[in-house]
């Protein structure tokens, strides 16, 4: 599939889950395509990073379901901060573990899963539809009944995949990408490189094959498609570019410039603009212009 093929299967108002964690292994090429689309009124489910920031900045998000929105090396995502402080989006604020549980419940086709997280906290005050449930087994203990978080669609990014949708992560953490896929009606997998099935084990052991083709509706090859988030071992987070992004996000005029430079074209245009930015930022070539922020 192409990025446009994937976006063409989506509709306004859908609930879309985005894999990865913070500013780590985010399916950013798919997110950029979604941000550039005509879709609107989306509910986004994410352990949030710049995926949430870009979609909020593009006005695509009606409701966000999350435990946090962070750039990791920058604790708070600036578009998310602004959207909250101006009440531009609806928020379902959950404990991180609750979001895990909601995805697991959806993957298992259960209406809820019981959990201690949330008891005694104001999550039960700000999420008025959260309910508790009592154990039927004599101990009588009370739990939060974490509702399932079913998804219309999910985006995840893998290091490698085959054309059929068998996906492989090679970094330190699978995050919850398999659960996003199983919680979704249709899951779309982007990857650094599509390889023949027989070559998958050349890169990592069988247990690195996190996603199988029963879980996936479509595969897109998007080299550097997680940029500027980390996609180790293929590449680290681009801290210089992230600093540029975050610096621009605080100011409407700077953000217009950033969007014009990086977000006004196709994914290939984006990657070319990033290459120009990186070239201009390389040590020894400072002064070529266009550089913002220190190189990590």
């Amino acid at each position, binding site marked *: 599939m192409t990025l446009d093929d994937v976006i063409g299967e989506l509709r306004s108002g859908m609930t879309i889950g985005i894999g990865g964690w913070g500013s780590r292994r985010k399916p950013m090429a798919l997110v950029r395509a979604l941000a550039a689309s005509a879709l609107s009124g989306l509910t986004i489910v994410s352990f949030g990073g710049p995926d949430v920031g870009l979609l909020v900045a593009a006005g695509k998000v009606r409701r966000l379901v999350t435990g946090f929105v962070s750039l990791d090396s920058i604790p*708070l995502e600036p578009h998310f901060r602004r959207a909250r402080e101006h009440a531009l989006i609806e928020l379902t604020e959950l*404990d991180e573990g609750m979001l*895990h549980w909601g995805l697991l419940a959806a993957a298992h086709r259960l209406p809820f899963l019981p959990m201690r997280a949330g008891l005694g906290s*104001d999550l039960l005050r700000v999420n008025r539809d959260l309910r508790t449930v009592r154990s039927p087994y004599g101990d009588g*203990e*009370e739990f939060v009944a974490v509702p399932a978080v079913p998804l219309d669609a999910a985006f995840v990014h893998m290091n490698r995949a085959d054309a059929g949708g068998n996906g492989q992560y090679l970094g330190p953490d699978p*995050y919850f990408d398999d659960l996003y896929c199983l919680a979704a009606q249709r899951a779309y997998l982007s990857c650094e490189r599509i390889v023949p099935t027989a070559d998958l084990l050349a890169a990592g052991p069988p247990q690195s094959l996190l996603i199988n083709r029963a879980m996936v509706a479509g595969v897109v090859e998007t080299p550097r498609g997680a940029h500027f988030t980390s996609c180790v071992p293929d590449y680290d987070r681009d801290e210089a570019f992230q600093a540029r992004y975050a610096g621009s996000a605080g100011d409407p005029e700077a953000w217009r410039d950033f969007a014009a430079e990086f977000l006004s074209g196709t994914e290939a245009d984006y990657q070319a603009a990033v290459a120009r930015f990186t070239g201009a930022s390389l040590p020894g070539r400072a002064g070529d212009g266009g550089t913002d922020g220190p190189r990590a």
Partner: protein
Amino acid sequence: MSRGEPTMAEICVVACAEAWRGDGAILASPMGVIPALGARLAQLTFEPELLLTDGEATLLAPAADGRDGVPDHGAPDHGASDGSAGDREAGDGLVTEGWLPFRQVFTLLAAGKRHVMMGASQLDRFGNQNISCIGDWARPKAQLLGARGAPGNTVNHPVSYWVPKHSRRVLVDRVDMVSGVGYDRAAGLTGRSGRFHELRRVVTNLAVLDFGGPDRSMRLRSCHPGVSVSDVADATGFLLAAPYQVPQTRLPTEAELALIRNRLDPQARRDRELAGR
């Protein structure tokens, strides 16, 4: 190599380390530079069984005869990931002893095998902690980190807090949003639901506190050198319980100072966390 009086940052490192004393083989999750140094110090000295991660998914133990370090890391995030790390230098004296992706952190914390030291934007008398937002939740004056892992952490396993700037803005009468659960809220839970709730210590740049006051309210446990009881009371936005005689926070030993200065933090990143004082 370790001559010289201990600095306040070093005293705080040791006070943080003390929070994990007696914990044994559980995951220590420190958020912030000084708590991370404290946890590594505890692991290297009196609490060798502690487990610590690199801030991502790898469990790291001190090499038998290595030069240790707490690698530079991203901002603390108070959730399932811990603030003890980031990228490792080759030859940092640490060896991989296990794998702990986020999904396993969630299971480990629900199993109670973890003691986290979180930060707090606001913390009240009973230990209710806010890291979500300031002002009305529906349209906050200031959006903060979000609840992250605080609700689950506080009802599942021991939690301590690190406050690098003890002030009435942080130690408040009432928090705007309860992210981490305090003793009054835990006591109000139905039946046995609060049985795993335990707040251990609050370490600040002025003092060490615990929850041994009336109705498990915050109590002054020790003042750091040069800090008086009234200094602490003045910087606290609620009535603080205190024993008749408040001891001084214990000073680092020579061996501890050597470990902090030469092995764990030769770049003195610990000083930056207290720079705003």
